[in-house]
């Protein structure tokens, strides 16, 4: 189920989406961050279960900041609130991290641990961790247990990050440029497995940032555009296609202010 198109420039106004059959809900209420050289303007957004949403924007537009804040991993303090199923993320840390999976831009972990040791360590923190599912993901992505994290290639690190974030099937899955820097084959593999793990219409929310407009078409139904710290559009692929004939053309238009 896709939300209705709502293209808008917003500063603290709630995004309206149609009611969704699943109650899962991620809500940003006037969320904003101020750094010495950058400000992410107040942003309000509601995401529902079953939605796959792309966060698009140029470098430094605030995509990673937003994802980290939602995951409860932002170093800086922020204003406003982020709510997952009505629970304020910041006040529910660290326990709420068991409900959120984040695939960061780069794998975090001990280089001297093997893939198996890394996952076994993580497993002890997530009660819903499914070992069979984890093993099937590893096999599917071609990751070997005995390889040390320090010896993994960029593509393998992304894959392992994905397994670590997905093995406990978090209701909210966040991916920070998951396909950036990957070769086309690995990129396709990663995209396909993300689609399989969180199919449209399920009860999970998938929010991913990307520079790659192809990824938007493959993975998302809804697109949120950030530009220089301002949420400048929240729309659907259908609305983008209707606007300029192609998703890429419409997104370029939005980013260029057309």
């Amino acid at each position, binding site marked *: 189920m896709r939300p209705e198109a709502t293209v808008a420039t917003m500063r603290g106004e709630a995004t309206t989406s149609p009611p969704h059959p699943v109650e899962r809900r991620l809500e940003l209420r006037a969320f904003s961050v101020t750094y010495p050289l950058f400000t992410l303007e107040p942003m309000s957004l509601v995401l529902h279960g079953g939605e796959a949403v792309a966060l698009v924007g140029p470098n430094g537009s605030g995509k990673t900041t937003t994802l980290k804040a939602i995951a409860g*991993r932002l170093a800086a303090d922020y204003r406003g609130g982020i709510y997952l199923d009505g629970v304020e993320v910041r006040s529910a840390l*660290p326990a709420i*991290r068991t409900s959120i999976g*984040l695939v960061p831009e780069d794998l975090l*972990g001990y280089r001297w641990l093997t893939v198996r*040791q890394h996952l076994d360590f993580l497993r*002890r923190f997530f009660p819903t961790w499914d070992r069979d599912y984890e093993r099937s993901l590893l096999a599917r992505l071609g990751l070997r247990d005995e390889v040390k994290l320090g010896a993994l290639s960029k593509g393998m690190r992304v894959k392992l990050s994905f397994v670590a974030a997905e093995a406990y099937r978090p209701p909210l899955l966040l991916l920070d440029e998951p396909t950036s820097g990957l070769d086309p084959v690995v990129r396709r593999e990663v995209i396909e497995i993300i689609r399989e793990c969180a199919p449209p219409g399920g009860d999970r929310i998938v929010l991913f940032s990307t520079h790659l407009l192809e990824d938007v078409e493959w993975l998302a139904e809804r697109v949120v555009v950030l530009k220089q710290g301002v949420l400048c559009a929240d729309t659907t692929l259908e609305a983008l296609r209707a606007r300029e004939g192609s998703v890429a053309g419409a997104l370029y238009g939005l980013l260029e202010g057309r």
Partner: protein
Amino acid sequence: MSAGHFKALLGLELRRLAPTVLRVQGAALVLAALFILLGKASTENLLAAFIGTPIGATLLAPMTIVRDKMERTLEFLCTLPATAGEIAAARFAAAALALAPGAALAGIAVAAVDLPTPFDVLHGGLLAAATVGFWLLLSIASWVLVAAAAAFEFARLLRWPLVVVALAVILLLRIAERVRPADVAVALRDGPIPPWALPAAASVLLVALAAAALFAFAITRRAVARYRPDLDQPL
């Protein structure tokens, strides 16, 4: 505090510290063997090897914090659904466990050599108590250093905190001079010592050490909870 989280974090720390602890203690044994082979196995040399090594090993746990900050692995730990208290407690437990083999070897070495009078009083139960006390002191020293490493950046640690540590060492040496270990040993051997004196002294010492340990733990937990890797600011 979750026992499962604590055990996972402790296991990780021990996995990391164990090879270094083995190497350090192995080096003490090799040094002692060299002293014996070269005919220089005096009491002083052997004790220097076996008591000096665990003193040096107090730096191992603090250095893991420094390394964690440099390699972003403290950031990794802070992304887990674990509390700062669990992370700090695991560090402290790992530091104490890593120092246990060194303290035990030191106790064995003291038992094996001929101590000069009046230190020959150290045997049996008193030696066991002294070994445990030595391990406790080492652990608390390591915990204080862990707290310093958690609270300060390594570069800043080399400035005024280093001066504070140097002053503390000088103060402790002065106190040790006043107390005169030889006099304590003579008193233990010859008396007269009132029956309450040893338990009272031990209690005061334990309270002081517990206060130091709790303070170090509070500092470490706070530093982990407030840890802010300076990484998420957009360029």
